[in-house]
């Protein structure tokens, strides 16, 4: 901060620099307080998950973790946890594949073509925003029993795809908009077919953004609770498992479970942080 102050033009009056320095201090105080507000609770969860089950339910609490892994191993060995974890990963991966596979072509069509019905399609996509999508699990539960998709990984992934698809379409749309169509046209004149031009020119430029929108789809599914709890019974995901066993599971299990839920999402977000604002934020306007 002092370095930034020293870099300022010396012509500024002493009173002005004082005010500026005070403003800077206030700014950074607010930033630090807000960072603590975000990180503090996560740190305390970490403390709880990394202490022994006795210390978790004990009192008063210590504010440093004892790096005791017995809570986590208790969680890991608890009946049904390992399977729920596998199911969560499978559903989220399927959701990612489905929403990209269906959404990216639509995003490309919206970005590159003018055609009749374009606005109807956009309206359909935007309409999903006004609807509480997890409620789709109710009618689909009946439908799934009829077609044999009940309590299945694929059935839940299809519902999660409905949640993730509108975002995937909008994100890939703004992504392809950002790649100049002239690049493709140049490839066509040099003898590429449409598909070749897409594969050799557009795709390499779009891959990081597409991967980022895949990560958003994964996290959407990984975190979803309501539809997962309605649609799965034997094949519960981790969120469904934690929710439906709330009444019977002891505290250490809950906190270890929460940590296992939080950590992957944090890592994924860190990986795509560059695209969070440029793609997700702007595509959603």
């Amino acid at each position, binding site marked *: 901060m002092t370095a930034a102050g020293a870099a300022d033009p010396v012509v500024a009056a002493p009173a002005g620099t004082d005010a500026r320095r005070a403003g800077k201090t206030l700014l950074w105080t607010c930033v630090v307080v807000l960072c603590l507000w975000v990180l503090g609770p996560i740190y305390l969860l970490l403390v709880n998950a990394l202490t022994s089950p006795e210390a978790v339910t004990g009192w008063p609490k210590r504010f440093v973790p004892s790096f005791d892994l017995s809570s986590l191993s208790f969680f890991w060995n608890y009946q049904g946890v390992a399977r729920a974890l596998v199911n969560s990963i499978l559903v989220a991966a399927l959701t990612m594949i489905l929403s990209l596979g269906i959404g990216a*072509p639509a995003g490309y*069509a919206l970005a590159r073509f003018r055609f009749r019905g374009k606005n109807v399609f956009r309206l359909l*996509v935007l309409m999903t925003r006004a609807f*509480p999508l997890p409620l789709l699990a109710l009618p689909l539960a009946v439908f799934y029993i009829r077609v044999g998709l009940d309590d299945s990984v694929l059935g839940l992934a299809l519902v999660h*795809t409905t949640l993730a698809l509108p975002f995937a379409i909008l994100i890939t749309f703004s992504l392809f908009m950002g790649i100049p169509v002239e690049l493709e046209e140049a490839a066509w004149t040099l003898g590429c077919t449409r598909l070749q031009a897409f594969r050799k020119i557009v795709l390499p430029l779009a891959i990081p953004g597409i991967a980022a929108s895949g990560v958003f789809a994964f996290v959407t599914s990984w*975190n979803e609770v309501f539809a997962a709890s309605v649609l799965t019974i034997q094949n519960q995901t981790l969120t469904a498992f934690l929710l439906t066993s709330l009444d019977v599971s002891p505290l250490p299990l809950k906190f270890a479970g929460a940590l296992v839920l939080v950590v992957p999402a944090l890592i994924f977000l860190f990986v795509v942080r560059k695209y969070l604002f440029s793609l997700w934020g702007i595509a959603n306007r």
Partner: protein
Amino acid sequence: MNDARFLPYLLLLPATVFLIAFFLVPFTQVAVEAFTTAEGFSLGNFQTIGRDWKFVPAIRNTLLLTALIVPIQLALSLFMATLVTRIGRGRDIVLYVFTIPLGISDLAAGLIWLALLDQSGFLNTVLFNLGLIDGPQNLLSYQNVPALFAAIVIAEVWRATAIMLVILVAGMSLIPREYYEAAEVFGAGGWKRFTRITLPLLRSSLQTALILRTILAFEVFAVVIVLAGTNLPILMGETFAWQFGLQDREGAAAYAMIILAISVAFTLVFLIGLRDKAEART
């Protein structure tokens, strides 16, 4: 190039089919189910859920929570976004920290705040060390409804402000710097620049953020179940209870219709209330 006429339709086909099959049709089905009893079309399912003592509290609690949470989040996310635009070095890391809760589900957020607010939680220890209490207190007792509300509001503000922040920061980055410089030349102070430049030019972002966040607030579910159990009825919780606990699909469908109706109603309110006059012309 002849196929180019059909290509966009071919590319849109999977998404269109999917959205019809897994969005339009199921919502139509749930609407039909909600308004159908053994005698055909009727409001009987709504009367059935209306007779339950939890019906009115569920609507009241959900609306009250939304009315408490969304305005706080709006103010906080605007404040955070403004702070971020003033940071030079270190902006990226601050933005990352601010958006961390974006990756956290409402279930995990509920559990995180349970670790703080529970009887054996950290807040109790802090209060004890400060000499304010003699021993562990049950802060989340079902008898103390205001405390339950406060806990849910805090957990939701903590978790879901980030989604508004991302949209607002992205929106602010599109506002040309020159506007602010010009305003500064003419002597506009910080507050005036905020109300006369930032807010008007942020309208479409604000609209999206408010719609997205309000719909999600009506869907509040796991965080309430974790912190308050079933002592604090909410619409999503009741939908789940009728579907699962009572095995009454028609009742659950009727609850779904109520959530749907208030969601669509509030979306329209934001769409009309925050309409862009320039946009209306095009």
